[in-house]
């Protein structure tokens, strides 16, 4: 009497479902992360206080010196695109902190036992951080207007610049998703981030033109993605010959996501 008894057989996923699942589950996780952001507002406040201090410092302390080296562009107009890029780059650390936190609390274990898309925990986090960046960049734009920043090149180009900033922030979030999964705890993620991010942001054209940097540093500064993105955003917002800057910036974003998203999902699958 060994005939197989009818036990519940798992339903097979239809193809449509398999294609939609990453989006559907990613949005569910993103919604969850945004609730946390709303409920713990200090996360948002601390990530906006620092860039505001930066704007005020650079604008009023270094503005005079740097402004003299710029030809016909007021420093605040030069500075703000750089600040936008800096804000989203530093903000990307939040992606690492959030994922490392989920690893630590055991929530990641639960997610991995659920019938959800393998990419959703990561894409949900990077998507929530994208939404967070929309808020932060809008806020910084307001702060910029208060200290003399103005739209010079029309609203569409200005908004396009904003989108380019957000795209770069999204790409950096995937880098830090990998960092968060690799280091596994929020404190280490924070500590590991600064030595990498500081040179990326400061050895760039974000706050000052690269022309006065030593030659070897210029080579790095002129070709790294923060400079490329800041340059493209600046041209869009202030005006001037665009060239291929926007495409270069988008190529960086696409390249970063193409490398780090699969790497992140691979780490997630095998994270212990």
């Amino acid at each position, binding site marked *: 009497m060994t005939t197989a008894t009818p036990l519940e057989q798992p339903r097979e996923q239809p193809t449509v479902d398999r294609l939609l699942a990453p989006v559907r589950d990613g949005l569910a996780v993103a919604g969850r992360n945004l*609730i946390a952001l709303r*409920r713990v507002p200090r996360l948002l406040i601390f990530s906006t206080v620092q860039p505001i201090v930066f704007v005020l410092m650079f604008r009023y302390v270094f503005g005079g010196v740097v402004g003299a080296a710029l030809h016909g562009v007021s420093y605040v107009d030069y500075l703000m695109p750089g600040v936008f890029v800096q804000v989203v780059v530093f903000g990307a650390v939040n992606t690492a902190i959030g994922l490392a936190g989920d690893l630590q609390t055991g929530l990641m274990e*639960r*997610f991995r*036992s659920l019938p959800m898309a393998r990419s959703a925990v990561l894409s949900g986090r990077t998507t929530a951080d994208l939404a967070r960046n929309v808020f932060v960049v809008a806020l910084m734009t307001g702060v910029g207007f208060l200290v003399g920043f103005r739209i010079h090149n029309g609203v569409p180009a200005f908004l396009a610049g904003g989108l380019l900033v957000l795209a770069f922030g999204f790409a950096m979030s995937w880098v830090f998703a990998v960092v968060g999964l690799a280091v596994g705890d929020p404190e280490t993620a924070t500590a590991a981030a600064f030595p990498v991010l500081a040179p990326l942001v400061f050895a760039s054209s974000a706050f000052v033109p690269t022309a006065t940097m030593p030659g070897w540093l210029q080579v790095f500064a002129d070709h790294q993605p923060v400079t490329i993105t800041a340059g493209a955003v600046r041209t869009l917002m202030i005006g001037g010959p665009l060239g291929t800057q926007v495409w270069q910036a988008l190529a960086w974003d696409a390249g970063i996501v193409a490398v780090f998203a699969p790497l992140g999902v691979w780490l997630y699958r095998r994270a212990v």
Partner: protein
Amino acid sequence: MTAESATTQPAAARPAIRVEGLGKRFKDLVALDGVDFAVPPGTVFGLLGPNGAGKTTTIRILTTIVRPSAGRAEVLGTDVVARPAAVRRLIGLAGQYAAVDPNLTARENLRLIGRLTQLPRHRRDPRAADLLARFDLAAAADRPVRTYSGGMRRRLDVAAALVPEPPVLFLDEPTTGLDPQSRTALWELIRELVAEGTTVLLTTQYLEEADRLAQRVAVLAEGRVVADDTPHNLKARLGTTVLELGMGEDPRAARAAALLTDRLRQRPERDGALLRLPSPDGSLLLMDVLHALEAERLTPRTIAVRESSLDDVYLALTGHRTDDRAPDPGTTLEGPPS
């Protein structure tokens, strides 16, 4: 009567969980070394063992979180390595730490799990409300979980595992750290689920817990199953109480041990001047022991009858105490808090 009894009580049902020759190696550490067991549907199976014995690793393999290095594991006939996505639709998992989002409310946590387990939209809210009521969390349902006590979080964690109404439920040390009242309440819930047809695999460090809940218990030691039996048989073999006799001096203890072995066919474990006798009923044994010792003027100086701990079971099954070779030196093992 015919059709119904055939489906509710299959005579030779396929196991709900089947594990064969399961092995797992983490770098130099062998976590599982050829584990076999089978769990009939609609029953509770207990995995008993100290930290580091391989309980959690077994659960993590069965819930598709890690892959085994050797052997096979099936949930309701579905292979966990070949078809992990299908297995995830059959299981619920409540882990050792309450894996819920502290920033969400209990209701939001359950809704999220409902969404991620593809529960139809119209069923998510009623399901969450049901579980909140059942786990006595309704009053706190809309407070962020970070304001919860440990016991409340643990209950929410188990509730979260139940959202998709999984036919097979994995509970990894569900009552560790719970106060006795919450523990009893959780036991009651587990019994209800099993009465409704759920199969439960639970791990525990408490002999009493396995005894109260499980139809069958496997004892794990260093990644191997050292016993797989009903709690009744296990108790008969190993005893559920331990009689401890302080004899004052080592020579007296040695003489008393010899005497008890001889007269009562008990084989006490001697630790200096202390004798330990595992027994199914220590207080009954106590009378015989005292009579025998009295006759030889070997009256014990101190007498204690206590519940057997996992440590005692281990000693009986493996010949050494749990802390001898456990990889985590910070771990203390004791009976359930009483």
